[in-house]
């Protein structure tokens, strides 16, 4: 179960690669897909390693990605149930 | 209209010069912030403000230059104050970008220019009226301002109040065009009780944050304002903007905004027109003048009348917007306009444009540094009727 999650707003991304480079646990990689403006957004390749530290969010100059920590166990259980 | 805050009003009969009277007018009008940079012959205004305002409740700051002074006042206005700056020729030149900024952002404020001889450093201590076109056209792009021109210390007081009121009503920078002689001439100045001084209040919106659009005009084409710190989270930019205040770099947005900024003033031109006349009815010649020159011209008019000439006198008080319609109507009834001014022919161009060929227009130029000899104006009058 991951400790955190990351959300990507593909259409805002300009493909700079900051998030991929500076994610401490290498959760992200640049995708080969294009968004509608022709940029390659990142995608999640190692979801389980995400700590929700939000460094990607702090680096992203286009406000296109951010991470957050998974809630404590109670909600976690609920979430697992929902899966 | 509400009346002036008595705290700022020095009610009574005074003997003071035009610079001091203009300062008292500004304080009576509610100005509580001024930023300036010293320059002859305007400095007495800020010196008086610096001495007076701490006892009224306000702030004066001497900035590092006129660029700074002319935008510090805009900052103060957006924080809620009524504000003005004071200068003369060289400083006025430095302020031009911020006259345009104030016009574009609809920041109500007053620029006092005590005119001296130019160009450049020119004649620091001597009069001129040679910034009249600069006041109207000095900043780049198309915009409108209002300019008033007092001819006595009493009027420096009275009109300064009007300048602030018009700035608020139209959300426009108002140019207060004094000259060195009016600024330094000492006369009786009557300051009325505060309750007799009417004040145009800030056009603050009544709408709550969600519904308010910062540049959405009212029926008079003027939008209502808000101030920083009130929770509106609004944006102000000198870029072409839409009604939300957001930059909008399109032909349509430019057309909408710039035309409105112009129309809000030109549509009110009749109401803004303000001038004083003497013997204009039935006159053959009308002397059109303003500021200190109007006093000299009156003498010339009396001399001409003694010689049997039917000559009228028209003193412009609101110089911009120019009362084109009113002068055009007059042009149909007379032979000629005579226009003396302390420059080589500025407002005469407007008079000529207004006359539109219906009456002759004669310029009586003066390069500045002194005032006309009434005989010079008289000669021009006599020349026309000969």
């Amino acid at each position, binding site marked *: 179960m991951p400790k955190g999650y990351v959300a990507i707003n593909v259409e805002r991304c300009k493909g700079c690669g*900051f998030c991929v480079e500076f994610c401490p646990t290498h959760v992200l990689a640049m995708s080969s897909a294009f968004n509608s403006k022709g940029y390659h957004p990142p995608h999640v390749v190692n979801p389980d390693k995400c700590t929700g530290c939000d460094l990607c969010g702090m680096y992203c100059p286009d406000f296109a990605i951010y991470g957050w920590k998974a809630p404590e166990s109670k909600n976690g259980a609920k979430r697992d149930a929902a*899966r | 209209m509400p009346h002036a805050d008595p705290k700022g009003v020095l009610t009574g009969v005074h003997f003071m010069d035009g610079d001091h009277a203009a300062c008292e007018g500004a304080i009576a009008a509610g100005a509580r912030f001024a930023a300036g940079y010293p320059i002859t012959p305007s400095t007495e205004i800020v010196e008086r403000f610096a001495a007076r305002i701490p006892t009224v409740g306000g702030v004066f700051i001497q*900035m590092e230059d006129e660029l700074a002074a002319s935008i510090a006042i*805009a*900052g103060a206005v957006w924080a809620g104050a009524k504000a003005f700056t004071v200068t003369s020729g060289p400083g006025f030149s430095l302020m031009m970008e911020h006259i345009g900024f104030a016009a574009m952002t609809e920041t109500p404020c007053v620029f006092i220019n005590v005119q001296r001889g130019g160009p450049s450093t020119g004649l620091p201590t001597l009069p001129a009226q040679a910034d009249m076109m600069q006041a109207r056209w000095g900043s780049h792009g198309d915009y409108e301002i209002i300019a008033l021109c007092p001819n006595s210390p009493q009027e420096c007081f009275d009109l300064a109040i009007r300048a602030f009121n018009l700035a608020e009503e139209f959300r426009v920078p108002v140019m207060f065009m004094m000259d060195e002689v009016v600024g330094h001439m000492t006369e009786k100045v009557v300051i009325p009780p505060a309750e007799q001084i009417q004040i145009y209040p*800030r056009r603050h919106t009544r709408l709550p944050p969600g519904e308010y659009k910062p540049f959405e005009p009212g029926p008079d084409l003027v939008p209502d304002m808000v101030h920083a710190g009130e929770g509106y989270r609004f944006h102000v930019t000198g870029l072409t903007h839409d009604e939300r205040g957001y930059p909008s770099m399109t032909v349509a947005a430019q057309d909408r905004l710039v035309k409105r900024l112009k129309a809000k003033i030109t549509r009110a031109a009749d109401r803004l027109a303000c001038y004083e006349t003497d013997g204009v009815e039935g006159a053959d010649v009308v002397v059109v003048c303003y500021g200190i020159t109007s006093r000299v011209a009156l003498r010339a008019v009396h001399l001409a009348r003694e010689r049997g000439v039917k000559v009228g006198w028209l003193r412009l008080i609101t110089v911009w917007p120019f009362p084109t319609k009113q002068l055009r109507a007059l042009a149909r009834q007379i032979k000629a306009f005579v226009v003396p001014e302390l420059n080589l022919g500025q407002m005469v161009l407007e008079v000529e444009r207004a006359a539109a060929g219906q009456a002759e227009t004669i310029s009586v130029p003066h390069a500045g540094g002194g005032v006309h000899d009434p005989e010079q104006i008289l000669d021009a009058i006599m020349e026309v009727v000969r």
Partner: protein
Amino acid sequence: MNGGVGDPAELGPRPEAEIPPEACECAPENPVEQFLRTDRMPHIWCPGCGIGTTVNSFARALLEAKVDLDRVAVVSGIGCTGRVAGYVRLDSFHTTHGRAIPFATGLKLANPNLLVVVYSGDGDLFAIGGNHIIHAARRNLDIKVICVNNFVYGMTGGQVAPTTPVGATTTTTPYGCFEPAFNLPALMDAAGAVYVARWTSYHVRQLTRAMVDIFRKKGFCFIEVITPCPTLYQRKNRMGEGLDAMKYYKEKSKVRHGAPTSEVALTLDGDIIVGKFVDRERPEYMELMRSQLAAQLGDRYVEVEHLVCS
């Protein structure tokens, strides 16, 4: 500046972030989102430009410092960085080139309750606006200055700036810059700033921390943030993309808190000394004004907090 973005009204509905389906229930909003005029996104900054990164730190610092957001006013001059004022959902003023500081001066003096933040470029603040910033620091006016230094004039196409390192090529120094550059922290230190720091857009956490510091500190505070300008500075100097600049900052930055500001000048390819260099106390402008006037005028002094007209 990224071309081709027109009237925001023409951009259509804003795209939403893709949240992993299993995390929908716990997904918060991007913390920066509430600080953005989202109806103006995407912004005009180029891919890999560092200005947006500094805005993330700004947003998080405002949250962390728990400032009342209605009390914050952002003032920018003109330039790529100057556009920050237009993107933040706060009272914000995009003024004229070089004059953010004097505008902020009027704003602050008329309403001292505001937290006035000047956010602008190195050219805006130190070339055309250089006179204003040294005087604001001298006065110790209570404003917070965030200077984004990308070593060139971005908005106008990459011309030489007072910060351009000797040897760098710009569009107006096609044979290399030979003018010595300003050392911004030294200049601010000498002028009297009470807080002077430098970070880069790589140092997002430290930058956030520094911003929290200055939001809490009274007086004239200054932070220089070195950021990539891939489109102009990097390209002209064969320094690669924004990401290459970020890796360079990571490799070459040396944290030296309290370093004498005379020792932190930047060069074309040398180390970047970062850290908090100055943190001292001096009476602030309004305090000085009030105590002087009260001492001289006694009861006649009328102290008004907010100069608001009716």
